[in-house]
């Protein structure tokens, strides 16, 4: 019996070693896995552990402030409080959202929309729920921090453009850096950075932006700060002083409140831009917050595209303003004597085609000075014919037309100075002599920007130096000698003075005590077969109105160009602003040229 039992027992014991080996083998297998993870791949996991606990927190570098020529601050940095939610800390994210919406008095859907923006890069990082909280709201969220640990207030500085729409086109605004900019080699930007979009903010972005500092911190799994280690201080952005004169800018912007167009005021000796207004304008401060699609739609669908800088980016025919160029060319080329006269009876026939003067009754017998003063078309038809298109094009270019003027913020359209070569190249057709006649009074294919007209006028005023307009005071570039005859320029200047001071088309710009000169212009929107007064036409068919002018006292001079789209006559819609600007600038006792 005992053997029987023993046998049975031995059966079991015989099988034991197999089980033992199997168990130990499994332990060894597990140990091998640990060897693999800890020793073979240990460095990799050590790095992941360090990534887990170490955070490089950026120290925000304040962006440089921008001042006008008199040191008035145009923009400042203001804190903006954003509400963030850490979803890993929220028991019920719907409940948290309801609470936030209730506290902020904003619709839940708005917060939900922000929350749903995907952030695959950092699923554990707090997500933006609401922007731009008031201080009272911030205090409220701080007070409930214990019950709602999932909420965090994130402080970020945003730009506040003190004058809003008034300086919108000059200053531009900031926007989040785009993927393409980040991808560029040597990109100075980091993801999430705000960079200048348009205007001065864009052109001088590297000057204005500082360099963010960095604080290396140890955090726990909830992102709570445990210890600080390395630190690199932030380098603040530099201040930027503009040539802009805020008061002139404000006056011009106010004038354009109900108009479409642009105004440029230049110092004709330095090229400093004192005013640069484009209307309609927009409020750049809306870009400080995230634009919702509705706001964006409103902005881009607004009539007349407020985002467009009309002073640089829209080109128009110069109209009679171009007679300045034709007159200077005629005198310099000696194809005309100042005393020579032409008889104007309201119309004439050249190349078998009828060309009309704007004045139906005609001007009678006019010399150069009178032709400029009265803006007689007939006189300039003949002068243009004598000069020919090549010389007209040459002088246009010497005045800076047909090419960007070189304004530091960039974005300029070159406009168009037509000549036979252009005609063949671009139109595939020869240049017709009749077109030269149209160009002579600033019509035809000729296209200019208001900024180009301002540099043109500066060249007339300063005796032939083509200045490079600029908005930054540190960016002054030397003027280019246009090679124009100073005597011819002086004679044209005198005629322009007569336009204003001898009760002609520029009379509205007259300021007692100042020497003021100028030239009105009309850019036709539709070709008119007969004489029709522009103000009898519907708005969109009315002519554009130009007024290019200068003013001087015994020490200083200034150029002002005003362009009003569909403004009809420059004499009544454009010239009054020039007068207003001169009155402000030349105010007795205040030296506005000094900065």
């Amino acid at each position, binding site marked *: 019996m*005992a053997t029987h039992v023993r046998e*049975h027992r031995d059966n*079991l014991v015989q099988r034991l070693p197999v089980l*033992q080996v199997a168990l130990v083998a499994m*332990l060894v297998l597990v140990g091998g896995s640990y*060897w693999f993870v*800890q020793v073979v791949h240990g460095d990799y996991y050590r790095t992941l*552990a360090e990534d887990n*606990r170490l955070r490089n927190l950026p120290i925000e570098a304040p962006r440089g402030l921008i001042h006008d020529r008199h040191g008035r601050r145009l923009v400042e940095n203001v804190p903006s409080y954003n509400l963030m939610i850490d979803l890993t800390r929220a028991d019920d994210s719907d409940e948290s959202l309801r609470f936030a919406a209730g506290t902020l008095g904003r619709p839940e859907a708005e917060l939900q929309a922000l929350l749903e923006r995907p952030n695959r890069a950092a699923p554990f990082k707090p997500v933006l729920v609401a922007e731009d909280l008031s201080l009272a709201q911030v205090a409220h969220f701080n007070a409930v921090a214990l019950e709602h640990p999932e909420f965090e207030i994130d402080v970020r500085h945003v730009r506040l453009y003190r004058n809003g729409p008034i300086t919108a086109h000059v200053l531009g605004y900031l926007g989040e850096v785009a993927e393409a900019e980040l991808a560029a080699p040597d990109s100075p930007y980091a993801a999430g950075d705000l960079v200048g979009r348009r205007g001065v903010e864009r052109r001088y972005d590297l000057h204005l932006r500082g360099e963010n500092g960095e604080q290396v911190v140890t955090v726990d*799994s909830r992102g709570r700060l445990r210890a600080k280690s390395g630190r690199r201080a932030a380098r603040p952005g530099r201040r930027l002083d503009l040539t802009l004169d805020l008061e002139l800018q404000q006056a011009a912007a106010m004038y354009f409140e109900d108009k479409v167009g642009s105004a440029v005021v230049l110092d004709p000796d330095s090229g400093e831009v004192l005013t640069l207004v484009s209307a309609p304008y927009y409020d750049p401060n809306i870009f400080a917050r995230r634009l919702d699609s509705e706001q964006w739609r409103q902005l881009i669908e607004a009539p007349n595209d407020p985002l467009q800088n009309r002073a640089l980016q829209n080109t128009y025919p110069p109209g009679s303003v171009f007679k300045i160029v034709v007159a200077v060319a005629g005198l310099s080329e000696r194809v005309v004597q100042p005393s020579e006269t032409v008889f104007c009876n309201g119309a004439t026939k050249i190349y078998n085609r009828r060309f009309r003067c704007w004045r139906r009754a005609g001007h009678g017998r006019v010399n150069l000075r009178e032709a400029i003063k009265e803006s007689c078309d007939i006189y300039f038809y003949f002068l243009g014919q004598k000069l020919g298109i090549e010389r007209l094009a040459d002088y246009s270019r010497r005045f800076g037309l047909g090419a960007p003027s070189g304004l530091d913020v960039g974005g300029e359209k070159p406009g168009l100075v037509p000549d036979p070569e252009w005609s063949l190249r671009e139109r595939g057709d020869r240049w017709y002599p009749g077109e030269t006649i149209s160009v002579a009074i600033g019509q035809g294919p000729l296209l200019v920007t208001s900024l180009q007209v301002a540099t043109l006028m500066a060249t007339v005023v300063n005796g032939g130096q083509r200045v490079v307009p600029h908005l930054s005071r540190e960016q002054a570039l030397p003027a280019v000698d246009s090679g124009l005859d100073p005597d011819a320029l002086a004679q044209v200047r005198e005629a322009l003075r007569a336009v204003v001071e001898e009760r002609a088309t520029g009379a509205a710009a007259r300021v007692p005590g100042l020497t003021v000169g100028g030239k009105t212009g009309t850019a036709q929107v539709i070709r008119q077969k007969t004489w029709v007064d522009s103000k009898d036409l519907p708005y969109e068919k009315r002519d554009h109105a130009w007024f290019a002018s200068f003013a001087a006292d015994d020490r200083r001079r200034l150029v002002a160009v005003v362009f009003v789209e569909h403004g009809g006559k420059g004499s009544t819609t454009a010239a009054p602003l020039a007068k207003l600007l001169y009155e402000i600038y030349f105010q007795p006792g205040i030296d506005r040229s000094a900065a």
Partner: protein
Amino acid sequence: MRSISSPASIVALPEDRPALRYLAKVRWLMLLVALALAGAGLATIHSASSELSVDYMPRQAVWVALGLIAFLVGFGVDYLRLAKFALPIYVAALGLLTLVLLFGQEVGGARSWLGFGSWRLQPSELAKVATVLLLARYLAASNRRVLELKEVGVAALIAGVPMLLVALSPDLGSAAMFAPMLLGMLLLTGVSRRLLVIGALTAALFAAGAWNLVLLDYQKDRVRTYLAPGSDPLGDGYQLRQSKIAVGSGQLAGRGYGQGTQSQLRFLPARHTDFIFAVLAEEWGFLGVSGILFLFGAYILNGARVATRARDRTGILLVVGLLSVFTAHVIYNTAMVVGLVPITGIPLPFLSYGGSFLLANFFATGLILGVDFRRYVNR
């Protein structure tokens, strides 16, 4: 030399207590190994508790002290006498499991605790021991070299009923531990090859059926996360990832006691319970890991030695059954921490914080050494 009182019965009934002099012959080394593991557990729990609301180390120390009492109980009771009551004990355990299903407290999604005031008990731990005991008694009675199909079926039923009850709670991890227990004991008793193949196929079918019928959504998620760790970065994927980072960053020598950033900065959840081994791996490195694995190996081999020199089938089967469950816990937990198998709530014996489980392991150690102590009685 004593003879068996009844040749028909394989369950030998001892009439004498073993002489106290045999105490010196007992494999005390096994208890020392258990205490060393528990000591390592206390130290690691203390480190893992640094960011928790309380330090769980003193509580666990109390459990270790109670565990020694449990050891003495297991050591003192005659396993053959105990085996006589295997069926009533088993039925009582099933009763407790049913009670838990009906009135239990829910902890971590599973209704597996019985509460008595501030005391909580996990009947599934008791059920494991009770099932091993009944299986040992039943299989010991078989007098064939290879088990009959009917015997295998009864054994499967004995293990299957408590397994099902635990699975319903639903604590699949604990339920799964009944499988290696049954497997280890069946293999030892002897199973025909044909039956092994059939068993393997049945298990595969059952696994497929379980996926559709038995597994709850959160359990399926765990398996999915295991198969594709990136799929759930905030849930189980997070746990798995943080655990692997903790283990890997320990490298060869560890980051030092109390210096593990994964555990000290709260990146690792469940760090004092199911994932205690990750804390140990992070702070003590591969050297610490191999040390602990070595101790586990020593425990198992010492237990196997006890089985080898036990004098009766019941003793052998009891020891092997207990060791099978123990080893399954060790292997599954350590494999889970390093990311080899899906996450499920299986604690690490002697190291994880938790009273019932620690008591059960000390009690089992007592039973095993009790078998060793009584090996001369049958001479």
